[in-house]
């Protein structure tokens, strides 16, 4: 599925049980396709039931049009092909996890 992605980082998203922030964009070459993913850090320090946190990856998708326009705020927007195939997701997750940094890879 095609979608637009507006490039924005360092917004802290707060929940009652913690908060998370995407702080870095990264690229991964997968079968000659450019995978864009975000690195996020989360602190789960006020959940009702425990304490934790993680460094996680959030895969935006395959880039089909990099910074092809800007939105009203002047932020760059890319055109993205989302990744829904389970096998491809698993493979990409393994590649992202290979450096031992992130504990979870999520998709949209």
């Amino acid at each position, binding site marked *: 599925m095609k979608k637009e992605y507006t490039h924005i980082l360092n917004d802290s998203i707060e929940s009652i049980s913690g908060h998370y922030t995407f702080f870095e964009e990264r690229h991964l070459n997968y079968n000659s396709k450019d995978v864009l993913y975000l690195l996020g850090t989360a602190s*789960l320090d006020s*959940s009702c*039931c*425990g*304490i*934790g*946190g*993680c460094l996680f990856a959030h895969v935006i998708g395959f880039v089909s049009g990099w910074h092809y326009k800007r939105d009203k705020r002047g932020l760059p927007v890319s055109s993205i092909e989302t990744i829904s195939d389970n096998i491809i997701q*698993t493979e990409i*997750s393994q590649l992202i996890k290979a450096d*031992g940094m992130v*504990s979870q890879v999520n998709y949209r």
Partner: protein
Amino acid sequence: MKGIVSYGGYLPLNRINRDIVFKVMGWLHQATYMKGEKCVANFDEDSVTMAVASAMNCLEGFERDYVDGLYFATTTSPFKERRCASIIGTALDLKSQIRTADFTDSTSAGTSALIAAIDSIGAGSANSILLCASDVRVGKPGSSQELSFSDGAASLLLGDDGVIASWEGYYCVSYDFPDHWRTENDKADRSWEDRFGREQGYRKFIPEAISGLLSKYDLQQKDIAKVIFPGIYPRDHALICKKLGFEPGQVQDHLMTVMGNTGAAYPLMILISALEDSSPGDKLIVAGFGNGSDALLFHVTEEIEKVKGQKRGVKRYLESKRELDSYEKYLAFRNFISTEGGIRAEAIPYTALSLTWRDRREILGLCGTRCKKCGTPQYPVQRVCVNPDCGAIDEMEPYRFSDKKGKVFSFTGDMLAFTPNPPGIYAVTDFDGGGRYWFDVTDCDLESMEIGMPVEISFRRKYVDERGGIVGYFWKAVPIRL
């Protein structure tokens, strides 16, 4: 005829490539380099839990009441005082009227216990003895032992009926040889120089025991199908065999490259891997090494054909593995680095030992109950039947769940629950044959979990209370490995 009636092996799922260790610690002593990989017990495993795992494999197909005695051999007992053989016996749900003993303090403990077990049977004081040998060996970071030492377990059921390899004799040499030792406060081995242990011990005692055995029973090298002994120094292993006059085809693979030195369990683990490939009529010599050497002679019988490929021995476990890609994780698992668990992790409540004693069969043995009226298996132990259409009171009989397989009813991977190896995975499990309970899941990646996944139950360390020196053992679900 007395001898080996059954066998079971166990290798923990985790392997660490020695290159990973060497990349971090190799700068210290470059000469320690060793190829291949070694087994790493998971954070919730120790010599006792792995002994149980190998024993469960060994006892598959046998009534637990068949076992008259249990000998446990290790150099890494979790306790200085507490008989591990009794813990293992309870976990296996053996009857209480059995003889038990722990053999320890030397890597020869496995072969020593084997001789003692055979003697017990020979003396007529037991019809069958279950021998479990297990070790979780640690070497100091940066040492050659760190690269060679490994974790694993082997169990042999010894008896006088249905023998797959008959006992033909032994030859022992015993020396107070100071190649390595540990005192009360040592976590890892101390050792004299490697060259000394190799030249003056390994290269001398093993040939002495094997030659002694050959001449004691008037055997020629050509009579022996396989000679089996630890490859602690792989180069010297080949030299010894050559010097003793054995052809390469008569030498059992010592598994040092793919498994490592599993201490007291080592000679028995490679004996099992030899049995897995043996044929009726084969004569096998197995020798241990540690403060001397015990050489033992077995003769494989026709019965071996019945168990071929049926048992979980060693070979298939070698293939069933998961790469541990972090040396630091390995150090944390073995408590070489102390990690921050947070105040929450420290708030472990006390263990009521009178309760765990009272309910030992239920907790250590994972025995629940089955309703005699409606047949519903249930865990934990119930006096009132959980089946809403039954509800019978005190109509229960004991029912062992540890040897039942099950399927994942539901599961999750939990980022918040405290565990030394997050995420904490747990699952409600429906047992084949009835019964439902929830368990921690171990030796498993969250990504591979799904509803309906088959699991079996594995004896593990549930928690360790450092303040009280208490290890809480219980059972966890694991994906079926073999």
